[in-house]
C-alpha cells in the first residue's frame, strides 16, 4: 500500500479569509483547484504557483458546493441563494442560471452523457428543500426532473453510471437507478453530510453526523466498513469526506481542525493531520472546522479546506 502523502505543499489563502465550504480539483489531471467560500465568490487557484487565476462572482450568498465538468470547460456552483450557476471556466461568466430550489442548495454534481467532445448533459443538485433536481445543461429554464423522496434537506449528491445518489439529513442515502426505475433507500441512522462514490460504482462512502463514516455496498445495502475515531468529531457541521488512493483510504476533515485518514480495508486510522499551520486544536468554532477535502488521483495530492479560509495542498514529501 502506497504511503499517504502527508506533507503540506502549499497553503493557499482567500483574500477575505472567510470560511471555505467547497473544494474540488479540476477534472483530468487536476492541475487547478476551485474553492467556494462564504464570501460568495469562487476562486480558481493554481496550487503550483499559489496564484488565484480567476474569481467567479455571481452568487448572492455563500457558495456551498462545486463540481467540474469532465471536459474542464465548465463547472457548476450552488449556494445559499437557492440558485445553481453554470460557469464557463475560460470567460469567467455564468452561462446558465437555474432557479427552482426553494431552499439553499447544498450539493451539486455533473451527470449524464454529453456528446462527443463535450461535457456532461445534466447538473444534479440537492438542497435544503429536500429535493434533488436535475437540470439540463443545454436548455435554459426548468429542471428535467425533481426527486422529492427525501424527507429532509439533501446535503450531497453524487452521480454515477446511470445512478444518482442523494444523501439526506433524514439519515438516508437514496440511490436512484435510472435504468431499473427503482430507488434504493439505505438508512444510515444519522444525517448524511457527505457522499462519495467508489471508483467501481459499487460502493459509496457516506459521512454521517455523529462522527462515523461508512463505506456502504451499493448492491446489497450492507455496511462494508465503518470509520470512526476518538479524535474525530463531526457532530454539527457538514464536512466533506472523500475516498483516496483508488479507494484505499477514506479521508475526512474533523470539526476540531484535524484530518483523519482511515484505511479502507482494515478500518484503522492511518493518519491524523492538523489542517492548521501550527498544528493546534481549533477553537471549537466553525473557523477550526476542516470543511472539505479533495483528492487528486493523478498527482497523488490532496487538499483540505477549512473554516479559517485556507486551503492546504498535501503531497508526498520531497
Amino acid at each position: 500500500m502506497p504511503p499517504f502523502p502527508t506533507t503540506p505543499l502549499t497553503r493557499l489563502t482567500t483574500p477575505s479569509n472567510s470560511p471555505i465550504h467547497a473544494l474540488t480539483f479540476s477534472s483530468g489531471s487536476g492541475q487547478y483547484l476551485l474553492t467556494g467560500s462564504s464570501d460568495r465568490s469562487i476562486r480558481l487557484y493554481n496550487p503550483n504557483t499559489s496564484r488565484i487565476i480567476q474569481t467567479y462572482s455571481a452568487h448572492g450568498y455563500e457558495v456551498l458546493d462545486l463540481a467540474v465538468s469532465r471536459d474542464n470547460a465548465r463547472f457548476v456552483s450552488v449556494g445559499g441563494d437557492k440558485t445553481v450557476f453554470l460557469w464557463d471556466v475560460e470567460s469567467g461568466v455564468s452561462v446558465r442560471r437555474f432557479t427552482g430550489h426553494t431552499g439553499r442548495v447544498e450539493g451539486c454534481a455533473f451527470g449524464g452523457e454529453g456528446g462527443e467532445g463535450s461535457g456532461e448533459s445534466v447538473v444534479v443538485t440537492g438542497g435544503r428543500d429536500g429535493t434533488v433536481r436535475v437540470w439540463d445543461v443545454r436548455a435554459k429554464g426548468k429542471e428535467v426532473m425533481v426527486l422529492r423522496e427525501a424527507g429532509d434537506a439533501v446535503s450531497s449528491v453524487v452521480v454515477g453510471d446511470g445512478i444518482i445518489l442523494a444523501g439526506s439529513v433524514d439519515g438516508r442515502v437514496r440511490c436512484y437507478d435510472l435504468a431499473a426505475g427503482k430507488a434504493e433507500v439505505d438508512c444510515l441512522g444519522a444525517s448524511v453530510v457527505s457522499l462519495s462514490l467508489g471508483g467501481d460504482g459499487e460502493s459509496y462512502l457516506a459521512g454521517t453526523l455523529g462522527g462515523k463514516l461508512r463505506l456502504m455496498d451499493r448492491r446489497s445495502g450492507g455496511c462494508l466498513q465503518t470509520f470512526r475515531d476518538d479524535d474525530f468529531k463531526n457532530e454539527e457541521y457538514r464536512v466533506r469526506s472523500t475516498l483516496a488512493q483508488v479507494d484505499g483510504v477514506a479521508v475526512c476533515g474533523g470539526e476540531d481542525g484535524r484530518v483523519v485518514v482511515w484505511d479502507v480495508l482494515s478500518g484503522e486510522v492511518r493518519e491524523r493531520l492538523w489542517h492548521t499551520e501550527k498544528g493546534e486544536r481549533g477553537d471549537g468554532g466553525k473557523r477550526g472546522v476542516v470543511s472539505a477535502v479533495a483528492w487528486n488521483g493523478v498527482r497523488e495530492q490532496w487538499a483540505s479546506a477549512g473554516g479559517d479560509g485556507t486551503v492546504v495542498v498535501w503531497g508526498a514529501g520531497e
Partner: protein
Amino acid sequence: MSSQKKRPFSSTLDSNPSHAPYALIGTPLPAYDPEARDDGSYVPIWKQEVTDERGRKRLHGAFTGGWSAGYFNSVGSKEGWTPSTFMSSRGKKGGDDDAGKEKPKGQRVEDFMDEEDLAERAEGEVISTQDGFAGLGGGRRAGAEGGMFTDLFRATGETMGVKLLQRMGWRAGQGIGPKVRRKAKGDEKGEVHLFAPEDSRMIGLGKKKDRKGLGFAGEEKLGSGEAEAKEEEEDSERDAKMMPSGRSKVLVKPKQKLKKSGFGMGVLNDTGSDDEDAYDMGPKISYNRIIGGDKKKKGLLATNANPAVQQKPTFGASKKLTKQTNSLAGFRKCHDGRLPLDGFVLTTAPLTLLQENKYPPPTVPEGWQPSRLSQTTSNTVTSRPNTSTDLQTLDPKSRAAILGEQPLPGKSIFSFLTPSARDRLATATNRKDLPPALSEKAPPGFELSEADRQKSLSDLVPELDKATAAAALQRLDGDSRGGWAPYSEDAAKRDRYRYFLSLRAGTETILPPRPESMALDDWSRELTEFKRAAEVFGPISSAMSGRFTSSGVAGSSPSTGQGVGGGREEDPAEKAAKLGMFGPMTRSTIDFYPTRLLCKRFNVRPPAHVSGETDASGAGNGAGGSSAGKSSMPGLDRMIRDGGFKASSFVSGGMEGGEKERGEALVTSEGLRESRARRGEVDVERNEALEGMRAGEAVFRAVFGGDEDEEEDQ
C-alpha cells in the same frame, strides 16, 4: 411677444380677412354670427342688449351703471322720444289666449323684483295643499256641518260617493233609503207627502287626542269647555232633528209654547206660517241672542224666576228639547240617534263582563234530590270513585281491574326495561305512574348472544384511522413535556380518551370499559367526542412531524434522541442502523419513475414501467443478455457507449486514456452508430451547434497550463 401670442390665430387671419381687411396687427374678431353663442364676436352696437341671467333687459347693478334706459342704454329710442303707439289692451282681457300668453311676458311682478325681493318672496312661501286634504286637514271644518257623509268622507269637495248619491236624487241633509210617506213636519192636518228619510247620524269615532280620562268633558268654565259645550248643543240639535216625527210630537209641544212667547223673530218669522218652526228647516243656524254663550244663558235660566221669561232668550227650540229629554230619567237615545224601543230603557251602568256574579245562577237548595234520577245513573254515581283526581291516577291496568277485565296476555315494553331506563322515561315524560320496569329477559330464542352484544357495543365506538389515533396518542403522551393535549384537566376522562386512542391504534382490543355512573348514551357520545378530538389533535402533529424531521433521526446526543424520537423509534430501518445491522434491514426499495428526458440525458434506456418498451429490443441488442440479467443489460449497453464517448473525448481533449485504446474505441463507437442506425434512432445527444462552439486547444492550453504536465502524468 405679442406676435407670438397671436400666432395660433394667424390662420384665421389669412383665411378670413373679408370682414376686417385692414387688420394688420392683432387678431380680427370672428365674423358676427347671430346663431353662435356670444364668444366675443362682433355685434353691432344697436344689437347689443344688456340682460341679466333671467333674460330681463337690465343694465348693471347700482355700481356698474344702473338701470337700462332708453336706446343703447341712453334715454330715448331709435325714433327719439316718440312714444310707441298706444294700443288698448281692452280686447285682450279675460280668457283670450293670446292675451294670456302675452300678459305674463310683458309685465309680471317678478320682472320688477331683484334677487333680494325674489329671495324674500321665496322665503315667505309656504307650500301647502290647495284645499283641505281628505282625512288630514279638513276634517274639523267639514265636521261643523256634521251628518253622516260629512263624517264619513272627510273631504271638503264632493266625493264620488256624494256625486253618485246626488245623481240618485239624494240631497245633502237627507237620509238614505226609500222615501217615507208622512205628513210634513208640524203640519198635523196636512196631507201626506213623500219625504226623504231622516238623516241618521254616523257614529263618530273621534280620535282621542288629549290625555284626559275617558268621558271627561273638560272644565266647563274654560274656553275649550265652552267650545265643547257648543258642539254638544249642536249635536243635540241635530239629534232632535232626527227624531221620528211621531215621537217628537210629544216633545214638540213645549216648543209651540215657546214660540208664542218668543220675541224678535223679525223678518225670519214672516215668511212661514206661525205653526212652523222657522228654524227647523233651511239653514241650520243657531242664533245666540245673548252675548257670552251658553253658560251665561244657563245662569240666566237659573236666575229667572218667571218660567215664561225663562224660555224667552233662547231660540234653539231643539236645545230645550234635548235638555228635557236629558232630564227625563233613563230617557236617552241610542247611539244612532234613535230612541230605544218601547218598553226598553237604556242602562246607565256600563256593561262589563267582569261582574260575573252579578247574576249568579240560582243556588240549589240544601238537601234537594232530583226526582227524575234513574236507577242506572245513580248506580254509576255510587260505584264511581268519588273524586276526580282518582280518575287521573287510574291507569289501564287498574281500570281493567275495576272493570273486571281479563289482563291482556301481551307484555308491555316496560316489562323489558331496566328500572333505570324506566326512571329516565319517567323524568322525561314527567309521569310518575309509569308501570314498573321488570327488566325481563328476552323471550327464549330471541336473546342476544354475547358476541352480538359486544358487537352492538363496538358499533358505538366510532371508527378512527389508526395513524390518526397513534398520532393523537403520541401527542397525548407528549403532553407531559409541556405540549397541550385535550382533557388535561380531567384525569379520568383523559384516561378514557387514552384508552380509546389505544384501542383504535391497535394496542388494545377489548372495548373501553364503561363507567358505572355513565349511561350508555353518554358513553357513546363521549366516544364520538374523543374521535373528534383525536381527529383535531392527531393530524396536526402528524402533519408537523412530516414537515419537520425530528432531531431524533439526526440523533447525535442521546438525550434528544430518546426524547423526541419516541414515535419514530418504530422505524425498523433506523433501529437496525443504530445497531449496525446494515443490509436488508436498512434497505428499502421504492419505485422511481425517471422522465424520458432524464434517461435520454443519461443515455439510459428508460425502465419498462416508464417507457413501456419491451425487453425484446434490448435482448436483440446486448450480448449475453440472458446471463447478465434484466438490470445489467442496459448497463452493458452503456459500457459500450462509454467506451465510444471516452474515445471521442480523448480525441478532442486528450486528457486521459491511452493511444492504443483509441482504435478500439473508435471501432466500438462505429458499431454503436451502426446499431443505432439499425434501430432507426435519432442521435439526440449530438448537438452540432454546441459542439461547434467549443473553444480550440490553444485556449485550453492557455488557461490550464502547458502540455508538459499531461505528458508527465501519462
